[in-house]
């Protein structure tokens, strides 16, 4: 046996190597198996299960997020097209109403012009008629005056 006499101890000493060594080795190996079944396996199972759960959830969340982003982009394009469509419809309606307004205005103008012309013509007719009548009366009168003057003589 490796038994140094160290520090004056009568037997043993610091470097007294004996059957404690192999028995301690066996004890540690046994402890490894005990700890494996009591500690490393159960805790490992729980931790790894949770890690799997968390990573699965993260993947799922990422998938959902990308889906949401896709839907958002979809909605955005739909919104864009709806907006341009609405703009188109509004401008079309504006053009239409503008056209209608212009047509109505022209029609009214024409009608007004026509009635104005008609009135003018009537006035002219009446004026000429009145003037004719007047000149005829003047003629009659002048003839009467002439006749009277001649008769008096």
């Amino acid at each position, binding site marked *: 046996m490796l038994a140094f006499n*160290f*520090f*004056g*101890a009568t*037997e*043993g*000493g*610091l*470097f*007294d*190597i*004996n*059957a*404690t*060594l*192999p*028995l*301690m*080795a066996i*004890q*540690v*190996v046994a*402890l*490894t198996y*005990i*700890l*494996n079944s*009591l*500690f*490393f396996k*159960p*805790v*490992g199972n*729980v*931790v790894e*299960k*949770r890690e799997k*759960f968390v990573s699965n959830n993260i993947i799922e969340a990422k998938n959902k997020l990308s889906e949401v982003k896709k839907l958002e982009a979809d909605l955005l394009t739909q919104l864009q097209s709806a907006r341009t469509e609405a703009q188109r419809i509004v401008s079309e309606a504006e053009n239409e109403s503008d056209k209608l307004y212009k047509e109505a205005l022209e029609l009214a103008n024409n009608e007004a012009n026509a009635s104005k012309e008609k009135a003018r013509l009537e006035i002219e007719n009446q004026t000429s008629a009145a003037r004719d009548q007047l000149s005829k009366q003047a003629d009659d009168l002048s003839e009467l005056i002439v006749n009277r003057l001649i008769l008096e003589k």
Partner: protein
Amino acid sequence: MFLNSLLTNFAALEVGQHLYWQIGNIRLHGQVFLTSWILLGALLVFISLGTKKMENDPKGLQNLLEFLWDYIRDLARTQIGEKVYRDWMPFIGTLFLFVFVSNWGGALIPWRLIKLPSGELGAPTADINTTIALALLVSLSYFYAGLSNKGWRYFEYYVHPTPIMLPFKILEDFTKPLSLSFRLFGNILADELVVGVLVFLVPLILPIPVMFLGLFTSAIQALIFATLAAYYIGEAVEEHH
């Protein structure tokens, strides 16, 4: 002789004295087994309590044990590598826990209050038998890891990168367990001796910082032992290209 008697009497420490158990023809250091059984019993009770009711949402002791598990896994994974760390994690973890519990138990529990007929109770890792047992287990483990993972190609490691390395690599197989066992043994024994001498000389306040330093050393030694064991196993299973 004078120095010897001075040291033993002056420090009033029973250095190198053991409580011998005689079983047939073999002699055992009883105090090592006694303290290791008490400490390992406490460890097993602690672990059983923590793993009794495992939940997906960890609370209390389970949380602590999961932290410990994660710590050991990281240690094993970084040193051994992603491929085989799972096989060796229980061994590395057991080494770490055993050394840590032994060191801290030896430093924290006032064993001196319990009188033994011969020798005194203390950290099991302050006995050379324990540390050599641990170191030899590490040696066997890395040989087994290398041979079981790579077969005879394991011995390529000895001539890698050049055959000049062969004598040094063979020497390493001897120095690895030697340095592992003596580092742990020396650190823990020295810590116990320093605290013992200081307590004897100045039984007030002064030993307290040294005791804290001892706790720090104890934790560091456990980490070093486990890390080196994992590193040796990792070295043995590593593939050279």
